[in-house]
């Protein structure tokens, strides 16, 4: 893949999945919709190609694996692939790609830069730098095959939170590249080629609360239902299933919160790691109704623009709700969902009265 090594999330080039990966393109889509997305840039697949070289060589040990290879063998082959990848980068010594990453980080960390992605700023390697702050960023893998409508790849590649400083960011980018070849990622791909890996670098949101949402009910596929789960602090413990979140079920059309399950939340993940939640807040809902309404509005806008149900992650700080990612929902979207029994009202009435078979689902 040829193209720029670094593109801002709002850059039109960031619409190309092959260049910026699934997550990157998804974020670009959100920016283009006007959603509040933390400012950031994508280290593209072109950068990956320039730094890593031909993936065929790296993947050779994996391709040699038989289909029913034991786990240990997969582990070993994956380790070999990672070593080959690191080797490839080492041979390229003063990697210009990583310099571009450092430069882009510096620009992102300049106080003059907008905190939200807006499509105008943050072109990699752009002009003179001002003073650079210690701005923490999230560095996330964005494989080209990730977040396609038929496979979510949720959590199969690495992400690094709270990375501070140009060199640390460059290192994290390399680590993300290498995570193409962790054993679990290899297992998940089941023989499909790894493809190229883009990496998203975004300002961290100082999250008071964070969580995930779905623009349909995952339990029954109801598309008029919006479901959101959230915890105090950063969302990672929720995404990884380590804690029980608050759960909100909202009717999309009335906006009514039809169900609220407030969990006991003794701890949260903050910048310094896991910390206790003040006693008084442990059993409180971590989202206000206004925040839920804002999240619903954003979620519906994304769904409408994409023309398909979405799931996504968000964080809330003093500025409001920030979208961290959104991607097509992959379970119910695959199922046939016609319900009409008959082509006319009369046929539908007859089907109701005769207990006629519903269309398959």
């Amino acid at each position, binding site marked *: 893949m040829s193209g720029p090594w670094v593109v801002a999330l709002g850059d039109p080039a960031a619409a190309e999945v092959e260049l910026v990966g699934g997550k990157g393109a998804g974020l670009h889509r959100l920016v283009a919709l006007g959603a509040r997305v933390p400012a950031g840039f994508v280290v593209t697949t072109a950068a990956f190609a320039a730094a890593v070289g031909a993936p065929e060589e790296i993947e050779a040990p994996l391709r040699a694996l038989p289909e029913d290879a034991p786990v240990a063998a997969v582990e070993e082959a994956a380790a070999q692939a990672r070593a080959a990848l690191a080797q490839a980068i080492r041979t390229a010594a003063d990697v210009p790609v990583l310099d571009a990453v450092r430069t882009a980080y510096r620009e992102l960390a300049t106080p003059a830069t907008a905190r939200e992605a807006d499509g105008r700023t943050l072109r990699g390697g752009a002009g003179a730098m001002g003073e650079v702050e210690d701005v923490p960023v999230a560095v996330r893998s964005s494989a080209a095959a990730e977040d396609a409508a038929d496979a979510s790849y949720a959590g199969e590649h690495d992400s690094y939170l709270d990375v501070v400083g140009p060199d640390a960011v460059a290192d994290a980018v390399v680590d993300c590249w290498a995570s193409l070849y962790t054993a679990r990622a290899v297992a998940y791909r089941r023989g499909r080629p790894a493809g190229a890996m883009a990496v998203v670098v975004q300002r961290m949101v100082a999250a008071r609360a964070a969580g995930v949402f779905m623009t349909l009910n995952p339990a029954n596929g109801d598309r*008029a239902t919006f479901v959101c789960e959230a915890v105090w602090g950063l969302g990672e413990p929720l995404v990884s299933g380590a804690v029980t979140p608050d759960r909100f079920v909202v009717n999309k*059309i009335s906006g009514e919160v039809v169900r609220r399950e407030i969990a006991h939340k003794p701890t949260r993940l903050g910048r310094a790691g896991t910390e206790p939640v003040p006693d008084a807040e442990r059993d409180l809902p971590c989202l206000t109704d206004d925040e839920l309404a804002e999240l619903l509005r954003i979620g519906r806008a994304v769904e409408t623009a994409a023309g398909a149900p979405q799931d996504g992650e968000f964080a809330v700080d003093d500025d409001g709700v920030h979208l961290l990612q959104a991607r097509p929902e992959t379970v119910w979207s695959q199922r046939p969902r016609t319900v*009409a029994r008959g082509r006319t009202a*009369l046929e539908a*009435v007859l089907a109701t009265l005769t207990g006629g078979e519903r269309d398959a689902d």
Partner: protein
Amino acid sequence: MPTDRFPSPFDIATPEGAEGWESMYDWYHLFGPERRELDEQRFWFADRLHHPDVLHPYDEIQCECWWQALGAFNTRIFAMPPAYGVDQRILNGRLYVTPVPAPQGDVAARAEEFGKRAGHYYERWDAIYAEWKEKVLARLAELRALRFDPLPDLEPESTVYEHVGTSAGFRMIRDFNHLVTSMYETYQWHFELLNIGYAAYLTFFGMCKSAFPDITDQTISRMVGGLDVELYRPDDELKRLAKEAQRLGVDLGADTPAAELFTKLRQDDAGAEWVADWERTSDPWFVVNTDPGHPGGYHVHPTWAEAPDVPLAAVREYVRRLDSGEAIDRPTDDVLRERDRIAGEYRELMAEADRPVFDETLELARKVFVYIEEHVLYIEHWMWAAFWSKSKELSRALAAMGELDEPEDMFFLRRYEVAEAIYDCVVGWSVGSRSRGADYWRPIVETRRRIYDALKAWEPEPALGPPPAEVNEPFTVMLWGITTSTVGEWLKADDEGGKVLRGTGGAPGVVEGPVRVVTHVGELGSVEPGDVLVCPATSPSWAPVFSRIAATVSDVGGIMSHTAIVCREYGMPAVVGTGNAVSTLRPGQRVRVDGGAGTVTLLDEV
């Protein structure tokens, strides 16, 4: 799956003092040895929705009207594919019913006929309904024009000079027949449109539920309803009278009885203007029956017009709300806009292929829903109110002529016996001789009066016979609120020690409060703010009470029952179709009502 069975109707004992109750009802309405084999195999449930109380012999006619008409339209006229009629039996003065399924093998053939026949009606619905209203209103006017006066010593001169050619006695016989026949005919019309209407509504309902498993019944009815239907008119008139009272500066007092208040108000111009307005409004808009549950089922419940303290309390409540700055009007335009917005958004969320059928079904559902709501005013309120009122007029005339002792004794006679009594009375009058009259009826009426009281003390079994494996007949579920699980709950009611009553969640929410049992409109005055209203069912004419109570628990009704609809409107929890809340819960007992789960939990013992 229920494994036990309810008692056989043939094993139900006669309550003490009610021996001979069978003579109060027509023989064909009773369980009898000739069809024991059939009837013992059937699942019967107490129809507390339409007939929550003991039937007077004369009031049996109400059951007969729908027994035959519903049956004929389902079974013989429209060929409703899965369902024949609903069979009835009277046991210890209570009505038990059982839906009769169409033979499974006939369903396909019936569906083909139904498609043609109901299809004809669906296509011409609005025109047919317009004609329908005309014929009902014409018949209503006819009934109201009937006069049942004591027969005159000498016929008026007009009988001679206008060549009437009949006697007042004959006309009494004729007019009673006409009264009864008219009610029967009106019931044909009632079912002419009702069940095919329900079928269309249920179809839309089912489509929404399949596409959107989370959708609430309330949302579906909001997509369909919200029209300016005449059923809301009585309540709208109350609001208008409240505003008029405010405009005219008329003080309606706090609890002066209506008659006294009206006399007082007439003493000045503003008050007189308001009372005149009330009287004009009263007919027809306050001709609404106050039965708890299905209106018009019994002669004993007055209309608003007959019991003006009830609507007056509602007007006072509206005045109070106006005074505190509340808006009391139904925001019809907003409701309509919201209805279209909701429907539009759900439509957009449907699979594209489903949208045309969704549109068509919604349009049909909206069309039929107007009838489903409005027919209640035409038939259950206006026609039945007229029927009961004329029947009472006749009863008073018979008493005045010495055929009966008391003004309402006629209601202890079956309708065939009433025809006999009229003939006996008329022939005595005609011949100038003496009828057997009160001497003949007195012991019969006295016995039945005693039996009636004994039957009232009997707590009917919620159901009889073997429960079905599954209750899935759509009308039973929707109208009576009886489901597989409620039947199961009835069966195990005894095992739970009565700590939890289960019904259908009619309106969501959870509240706790003290029980207030109300079975007659006259008891509404005792309701305190925050009470949990426990009743056989509610009625639109009970409107004043809903702004005071915390929740409603009813014995009968499904998700589309009046109780459920109104409570959803008021945003208060309702559990409907509990079967036996009225007999189980005691006044003052604290309960928790969970309108989502459909449970009523007893919190303490009184």
